[in-house]
């Protein structure tokens, strides 16, 4: 089964080149360009074929896992989301990257993204992009952005009293994005969801504190009515339509708002006063520990061309590729030095905050059963307004432990 997509310019020239099949985010903007450039740079040794997977992460994983589990030798390069890396590594689907290769793969990279690609102290993939949420706020409503959640709640309630836009936009729907938000709050309090090697659930007073905060957001009248139905697009819309004064969302907000502002006055007005800062802290003295997003890229253990596949993966994650992806798709680079580049600074006007946040960022639980943990968490803590901190923490304890042990059923 040879897959020819438009991206790969099928049948074109260089005979003798090996076809390397990439399964990941091939449909992402900029990826076609990257794959073509990397193929050209191989001097005819290989040609990367981008096999399209659905654009949503869950859809990608469904398809990818099915093929990997079937031992599909047609997969050479794999692009897992940061949260699947442990799962793929544990299942033996990713080739470990060791010794000199590991050094080449991590040269100049920020440490938190490297952690996402590491499982059991072994590197299994090359970090390709990362991402952190920011606090977007309206400068015409508040002079100084809030630094803590407490402060943000106060500001929001004040604005509400004055009849101004006041909503705090947060991804509180029952899905992965809510787990990202929960993890950020929990990590900022200093808590963890599971222990280091992902065998035991860790529920303590920090979990309860984090749940208390989410409950407060859900009940104190600062959130949108549709909090428990809000994913990124809805949160963005809350800012765009002038309902929100603050939103927690990814860096794409500025470019998306600019695109909307071209045809919409309301958006243009918001854009004029839109600014970003780091995610609010949970405590006065500790910086927030924002949850990392992003994607890694690795070599499939069933590949028949592992050496070439590794070279291709390196190229697709190279600084140059990162720049292309940053400009085309708004994905944040993982190579620290790139933040010095003018084109990156232009793509992410908030680069300083992003870089700062990356230094203290946290990871979602690294676990071979992360999907199970995540599905459980998002169900147990939904909707935010129904959280009973102590009780919910106990439910989290027993149900996450079941997920780790492979017991019970997923909600």
């Amino acid at each position: 089964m040879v897959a020819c997509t438009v991206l790969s310019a099928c049948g074109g020239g260089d005979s003798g080149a090996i076809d390397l099949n990439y399964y990941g985010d091939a449909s992402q903007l900029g990826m076609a360009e990257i794959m073509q450039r990397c193929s050209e740079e191989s001097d005819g040794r290989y040609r990367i074929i981008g096999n399209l997977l659905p654009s949503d992460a869950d859809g990608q994983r469904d398809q990818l896992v099915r093929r990997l589990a079937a031992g599909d030798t047609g997969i050479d390069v794999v692009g897992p989301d940061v949260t699947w890396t442990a799962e793929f590594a544990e299942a033996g689907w990713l080739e470990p990257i060791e010794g000199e290769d590991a050094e080449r793969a991590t040269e100049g990279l920020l440490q938190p993204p490297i952690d996402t690609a590491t499982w059991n102290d072994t590197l299994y993939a090359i970090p390709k992009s990362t991402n952190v949420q920011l606090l977007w706020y309206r400068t015409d409503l508040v002079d100084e952005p809030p630094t803590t959640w407490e402060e943000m709640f106060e500001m929001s309630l004040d604005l509400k009293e004055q009849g101004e836009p006041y909503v705090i936009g947060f991804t509180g729907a029952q899905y992965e994005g809510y787990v990202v938000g929960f993890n950020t709050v929990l990590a900022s309090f200093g808590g963890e969801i599971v222990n280091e090697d992902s065998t035991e659930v860790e529920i303590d007073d920090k979990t309860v504190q984090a749940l208390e905060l989410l409950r407060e957001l859900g009940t104190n009248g600062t959130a949108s009515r549709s909090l428990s139905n809000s994913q990124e697009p809805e949160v963005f819309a809350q800012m765009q339509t002038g309902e929100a004064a603050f939103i927690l969302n990814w860096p794409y907000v500025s470019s998306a708002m600019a695109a909307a502002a071209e045809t919409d006055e309301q958006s243009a007005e918001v854009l004029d006063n839109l600014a970003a800062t780091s995610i609010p802290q949970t405590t006065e003295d500790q910086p927030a520990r924002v949850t990392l997003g992003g994607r890694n890229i690795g070599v499939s253990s069933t590949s028949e061309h592992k050496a070439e596949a590794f070279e291709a993966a390196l190229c697709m994650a190279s600084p140059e590729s990162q720049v292309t992806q940053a400009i085309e798709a708004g994905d944040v680079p993982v190579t620290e030095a790139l933040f010095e580049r003018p084109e990156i600074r232009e793509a992410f006007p908030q680069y300083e905050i992003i870089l700062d946040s990356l230094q203290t960022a946290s990871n979602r639980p690294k676990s071979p059963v992360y999907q199970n943990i995540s599905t459980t968490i998002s169900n147990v803590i939904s909707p935010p307004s129904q959280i009973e901190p102590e009780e919910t923490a106990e439910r989290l304890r027993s149900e996450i432990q079941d997920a780790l042990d492979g017991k019970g059923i997923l909600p």
Partner: protein
Amino acid sequence: MAATNTLETPRRKLYWGAVNAVVLIYAFVPVIWIVSLSLKSDGELNNGRYMTTSPTFEAYQQIFSNDDFTRALINSIGICLISTFLALLIGTSAAYAIARLQFPGKKAIVGASLLVAMFPQIALVTPLFSITVAIGIFDTWLGLIIPYITFALPLAIYTLSAFFREIPWELEKAAKMDGATPYQAFRKVIAPLAMPGVFTTAILVFINCWNDFLFALSLTTSTDARTVPAALSYFQGATTFEKPTQAIAAAAVIITIPIVIFVLFFQRRIVAGLTSGAVKG
């Protein structure tokens, strides 16, 4: 066909016109919302209005900007026409036998075909994936056509045999006694009576195939066989967290058009079937 007891008075026409209007509202209000979404600009998308005020065809240009979508459209049309034709061919013969003939195992066949329609398809996808890969029809038209026929058959057999049972087969005998050959009796008498059932089934089978997402996604990997519903899921927003809402809506609008044409064509056949139904008297 003018039903004999309905006089086409202006009042009756007005009455039916009003009833039709209700049907059109039911059918089109949500559809126009999808059309409107496909025409909205990024700025307008979230403004909560039903209609777009400054329509843009950007989304349509976007989906036709490369030939992926066109190829998916061709795949969809080809795969679904072939599947529908074959499913009807196989289904009609089985349904005829079930409705008209006595033979052992009939009930078992009817029961087993229901079984196929009852089993949750998500539990069948992974083994089907392995099978199609193993026999080398993964990511081909055939690799989709075979499952589509299979999962269309229960509905086809049930619908068709239900209709065949209601056909007054005595007419066939009568025609033969009047000197018609068996073929003529079938063509002139039975086939027209069977047509409403056959074309109804054709429409349902075709639409089911056209809308299938699960198999289209799981049993294809390239533009060789990928159909439109699967292609939809590959649409990418401007950045990772943006949904390509307008492009998806636009694609949904585009792929509904062939169905409308297909139905327009076949609904005439249903009418034709009905008219000859008058023969029955």
